């Protein structure tokens, strides 16, 4: 058990190249499941590799527990690093695969067996101990790989996109297993992914990175509801958040071409006199479709595309020069060409400053 602290960590891969990791300060709590999330090249894997000791930071300190590990080799850091879950020894039995790291430490055979069996029971693979991994379905292979990481009882698990190569339904199952297991073991976990669904569904907190810079660290729901930057707002959520470029005029947001406008909540009052250049953002589920009628006030629009997904339906709607994506319950039936009015959940409006791309509305205003 240990927490991990990164203090002003920089990583440069050479002069003239932007920093891979730029002044990263982050505390990962003891027993926490923290996901490092971002697109490829954002610095998340480099960060993980520095924690593991596979990469040396250019400056800054890394502590695991109460030890500064800057000068420790990977093997001395008491961590287990899991890449893709598939790297099993095909010719060894499941028992020997799981026990391998312990044998490498020259533990007595009885102790190895006891710990392997303990882990196998936890992962519900006791009945597979005699099989060889090559014959097992993907999900069971993953559990074996997980078992091999667990058996050493490390202070910290580090995982780099371990589910990437699995098919969608197996990935969904493994997410559940991994989350449950981490909860059960209460071992600190740092998990790297570019998949926001994995990040949202498994983590206690998400650290979103882009271009080497930490964007935001918070719980999944706070990240989703209160993104602090335009990048976080648009990177998280499927379909991506609707964004309209424009400015604040009075207590109203008006698009660049002037044709799309929306009244803003009182929380935006302090920007009312600035004509501030902003992006307006709203998630697909915070827009509601109505049949066009005089009774419903709302933005007039025309349905372009209907995407039924079974448990919900997505509409792509042309509205006052903008294209909006709207999520609805499945049994609402609009057709392409239908005239509609769109209403906005004012509690769920986002505004981002165009220059800094930082969120303008206070983090908690909508919860009040």
């Amino acid at each position, binding site marked *: 058990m240990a927490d991990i602290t990164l203090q002003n960590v920089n990583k440069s891969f050479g002069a003239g190249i932007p920093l891979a990791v730029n002044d990263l300060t982050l505390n990962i709590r003891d027993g926490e499941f923290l996901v490092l999330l971002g697109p490829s090249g954002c610095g998340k894997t480099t960060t993980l590799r520095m924690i593991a000791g596979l990469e040396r930071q250019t400056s800054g300190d890394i502590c695991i527990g109460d030890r500064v590990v800057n000068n420790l080799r990977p093997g001395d850091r008491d961590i287990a690093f899991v890449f893709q879950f598939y790297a099993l020894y095909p010719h060894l039995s499941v028992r020997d695969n799981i026990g391998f790291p312990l044998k490498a430490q020259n533990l007595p055979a009885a102790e190895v067996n006891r710990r392997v069996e303990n882990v196998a029971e936890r992962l519900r693979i006791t009945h597979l101990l005699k099989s060889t991994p090559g014959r097992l379905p993907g999900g069971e292979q993953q559990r074996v790989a997980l078992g091999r990481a667990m058996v050493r009882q490390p202070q910290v698990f580090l995982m780099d996109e371990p589910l990437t190569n699995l098919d969608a*339904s197996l990935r969904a199952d493994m997410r559940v297993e991994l989350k*449950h297991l981490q*909860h059960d073991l209460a071992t600190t976990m740092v998990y790297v992914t570019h998949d926001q669904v994995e990040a*949202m569904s498994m983590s206690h907190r998400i650290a979103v990175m882009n271009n080497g810079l930490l964007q935001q660290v918070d719980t999944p729901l706070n990240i*989703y509801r209160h993104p602090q930057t335009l990048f976080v707002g648009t990177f998280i959520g499927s379909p991506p958040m609707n964004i309209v470029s424009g400015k604040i005029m009075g207590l109203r947001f008006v698009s660049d071409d002037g044709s799309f406008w929306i009244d803003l909540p009182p929380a935006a009052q302090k920007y009312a006199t600035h004509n501030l250049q902003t992006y307006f953002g709203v998630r*697909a589920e915070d827009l509601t479709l109505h049949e066009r009628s005089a009774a419903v006030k709302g933005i007039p629009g025309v349905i372009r595309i209907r*995407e*039924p997904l079974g448990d919900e339906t997505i509409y*792509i709607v042309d509205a006052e020069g903008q294209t909006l994506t709207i999520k609805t319950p499945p049994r609402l039936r609009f057709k392409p060409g239908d005239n509609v009015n769109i209403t906005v959940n004012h509690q769920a409006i986002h505004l981002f400053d165009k220059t800094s791309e930082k969120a303008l509305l206070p983090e908690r205003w909508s919860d009040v």
Partner: protein
Amino acid sequence: MSSLEVLNLSKRFGRKQALNGLNITVKDGEFMVLLGPTAAGKTTTLRCVAGLEKLNGGSITLDAEVITALSPAERDIALVFQTYALYPRKTAFENMAFPLQARGWDADRIKRRVGEVAALLRITELLQRRPAQMSGGQQQRVALGRAMVRQPRLFLMDEPLTNLDFKLRVEMRAELKRLQSELAATFFYVTNDQVEAMSMADRIAVLNNGELQQVDTPEQIYDHPANLFVAQFVGSPRMNTFECRLDLDQRALISADGVLKLDLSATQLTALSAADAKTLVFGCRPEDLSIAEKGMAVGTVYVLEPLGDRTFVDVQVGGQSLRVRAEASYRAAEGDKVGLDFDLARCHVFDAQTGKTLF
């Protein structure tokens, strides 16, 4: 534009029967998606239609003309693959103009036509760029443009969005659907991604092991799957299923471990007793389950998966692990006891042996 009829199509590779008497009709102007897992026979079907594979049996008809014996070039069909296969040294314009030059069009006419198509695809400003100077999505648009310029009778697409990143894929889905409907073109589109199939298709043909499972609209496929395979392949997260048996005395379904008892309506009961299946599989989608204080069953929260706009709750009931769709704001701790309600009118029962849907 044209209708396509695949009749009794068979294809073997060595001793392996890839397709066995496949029948599919794609209507004029229809967006038909052929959906299935890897090695289901989707790409083979597409390649047979394109003329890239020789059939072992059956026929392919385009607009009432049997094209089985025609060469690929004579079929007047456009193919778009997941790799864009653009000429790297040619500009977007030159790539798109190429099929027309090959047909001997004059330069003015080519320029006009490429311009029209580029406008439709919103790539006019990219026409002077080479592939290396474009993003994946832009390259895929150019590849589409190259297929579109010559107004083929039929578009065949083999997972064209697979290599794009998630956001672009979502965008291109809508874009492709818009194009198809604006052109009123006939699309025959292969994918293993059920979200693509659901969101774009007029109709979906589900294929598994070389055999057609069901052909229907996305909603029908989702709400009324013909069998257990379709039920589990379509929908994300996938449908919850568990084995159960019919208890006629109690007029109920009992889960194999005896923990769950689900009362049946008279019609459901009739359907099940008429079917006379030995073992049954019960199926319910996550959104047809709900957490309720006084539910039909009691379970234990295993894991909570918040996704922002909704939360999936994994609940263990006896030996069953059930995924429940809940509100985004739902809160519970692992290990909490919760009640579960089933929307039985929307649930399904399958014959475990044949996989056939009983209701």
